[in-house]
C-alpha cells in the first residue's frame, strides 16, 4: 500500500492521478465536516467542491513535512466555512428536509431515523459557542488528531483540549437520553 506522504509528494509534483487519490480519500470527510458546520446540503456540496478546487490551485505551494496534508486541506475547508458563514450569516436552524442523504439503509423509516439523529446533532452543535463547535467538528466529525486541530485553528493544544472537554460536557447535556 502506498503511503499518503508519497501520494502527497506526487501530487505536489503535479501528478494528477495522485491528487485524485487524495481527493477520493478526503472527499467524504471534507463534505461531512462542512455539512455539520453549515447544515445545508446544497451549500455543503458547493463548498466541498470549492475546497478541492482551491487545493488544486494551491497544491504547488504545499510544503511537505511542515504540516500534515490533512491539516492543510481541512484548513482550507475551515476558511471556506468561515468565509461562507461570515457572508451569509443567518439563522441556520435545520429541519429534517435539510438533512443530507444518510447511509445504511434504503428503508424510509430507517432513513428518517438517521436524519433525525443528524438533525439532533445539528441542533445540539448550534447551542455550543463557536470555538467549541469548531473543535468538536474537527475532532469528532473530521476525526483529526488534536495537534492538527490546534494547527488549523491557530490555538494551543491545551486550549483545544479545554474546548473539547467543555464542548463534550455540553453536548452530553444537550443529547441527554439519546446517547
Amino acid at each position, binding site marked *: 500500500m502506498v503511503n499518503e506522504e508519497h501520494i502527497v509528494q506526487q501530487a505536489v509534483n503535479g501528478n*494528477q492521478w495522485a491528487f485524485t487519490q487524495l481527493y477520493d480519500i478526503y*472527499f*467524504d470527510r471534507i*463534505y*461531512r465536516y462542512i455539512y*455539520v458546520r*453549515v*447544515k445545508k446540503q446544497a451549500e455543503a*456540496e458547493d463548498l466541498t*467542491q470549492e475546497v*478541492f*478546487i*482551491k487545493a*488544486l*490551485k*494551491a497544491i504547488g*505551494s*504545499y510544503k511537505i513535512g*511542515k504540516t500534515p496534508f490533512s*491539516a*492543510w486541506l481541512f*484548513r482550507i475547508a475551515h*476558511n471556506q466555512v*468561515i*468565509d461562507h458563514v*461570515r*457572508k*451569509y*450569516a*443567518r*439563522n*441556520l436552524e435545520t429541519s429534517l428536509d435539510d438533512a*443530507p*442523504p*444518510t*447511509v*445504511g439503509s434504503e428503508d424510509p423509516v430507517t432513513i428518517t431515523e*438517521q436524519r433525525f439523529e*443528524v438533525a*439532533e*446533532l445539528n441542533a445540539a452543535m*448550534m447551542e455550543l*459557542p*463557536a470555538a467549541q*463547535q469548531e473543535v*468538536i467538528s474537527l*475532532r469528532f*466529525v473530521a*476525526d483529526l*488528531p488534536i495537534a492538527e486541530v490546534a494547527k488549523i485553528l*491557530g*490555538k494551543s493544544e491545551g486550549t483545544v*483540549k*479545554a474546548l*473539547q*472537554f467543555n464542548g*463534550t*460536557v455540553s*453536548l452530553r447535556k444537550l*443529547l441527554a437520553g439519546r446517547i
Partner: protein
Amino acid sequence: MSRQLQDIFEECVERLRQGDSIENCLNSYPEVAADLEVLLRTSLNVNWRASMVQPRPEFKARARAQFIGAQQYAAQLKEVRPRPTIFSLQRAWVPALAVVLLLIFSSVGTAAAASNAMPDEPLYPAKIATEQVQLAFALSNEAKAELNVKLAETRSQEIATMATQGKTEQVVATTERLSQNLNAAEIAIQNIERTEIRQTLSVPQESTITPSAQPEPIMPPAPAPAPPRPDNSEKPQDTTRAAGKEPGLSWEKASTDKVERLRQSLNAIISKNVVILENAKNVAPDQTKQAIQEAIDISNSKQIELQNQRPEMQPKPLENNGNSKGFTPEPTGNKDEGQRPLPQSTGNENEETQTPEKSESITTTDPNKTSTTRDTSENIDKSLTSTTDNTSSTDTTKR
C-alpha cells in the same frame, strides 16, 4: 480534578481513534471511570451521528468528474505557457473551457442538458459545478465580473421558473446563489477600479488582490505581522502629494470606460432581474411570494449600492478611514491567530479585508450578524440616505 480529567479524556479519545476500547480506557483510570465513560460515549455518539452524513452519490460522481476536468484544464494551462501572464490565460480560456466540458461530460447532449437544468433537476449540480470551475479559472477581475453578471441573469431566470412552480425551497437556494453572483461581480468591478486608481496614482498594488499571490499554506508559530492600520498610511499619502495629484481628480480620471461598462452591464442585468422576479411574483403561488420578494430586495439593494458607488464615493485606500474594519483589525488575544495561511487569494477577493480575529469568532448560530446578501428594506433606506463616508465605510466593511 477537572484539568486532570481533561487530559485523561483527551488521551482516551486518542486511544479510541487508534482502535482501543472504552473498557480498556476506563480500566486505566478507575478513579474517574464514571465521568470518563459518559464523556467518551458522548464523543463516540457525535462521531456516529456524523458518520451518517454522506454526500449524495450523484453529486459525488459529478463532483469527481468535474474535479478531474479541472485538473486537466490546469495542466493544459501549464503546458501552454509555463509562466503565463493574465492576458495569455484569458486568451487560452475559451478553447480550454471546451476541453474541460468535453472531459467532464461524456456527451455534448449531457452538457447541453446540464446547462439548461433547473434547480429541481438532477443535472443542476453538474451545471453549478461547471460554473464553479469557470469562476475558479476566471483569473482577471474583468472576466470574473462578466461571468458573474451572466450567471446572475441565469439565476434570475431559474428563480422565476421555480417560483411559478411553487418550489419555495429552490427559490430560496437559488436566491442565495444570485446574491453570491451579484456580490462577486460587484467585488470584481471594485477591484478593477482600485487597480486603475492605483495605476493613476502610481501606487504599488497590494499583493492580496493579485491572483498569483500564494500565501504559506499553514501558519508558522510566529505571530503574524499586524495588517496596516489607517494611521500608518502616511507613505502613500506622501506619494500622492509628491506626484502633485489631487486625489479627487485622480479618482475621477480612474473611472474608465471599462468599469463604467461593467457597472452599466450589472445594473442592466439587475433591472432585468427585478422585472423577471416581479412578473414571477405576480403569478407565483402565495407560499413562494415571500421568497421572491427577498430576491427582489437583494437585487434592489445591490442596484442602490452600485448607484452609490460613483468613483468619488469609493473608499479611498490612501486616506485614514477609522470606520473600516478592513484596515483596523482588532487586537487579538491569540498569538497564533495572525494569519489565514491558505492560498485563498487565488480566487477569493474577500481575503483582502478579513481579519483573523473575525474568522475565529464567527458562529454559525448567530442570526444577528449582517450579511451582504440579506439587506433589509431598512438597510436600503439607510444606504439611500447615507453620506459619502458612510457608504464607503459600509462597503469596505462588507468586503
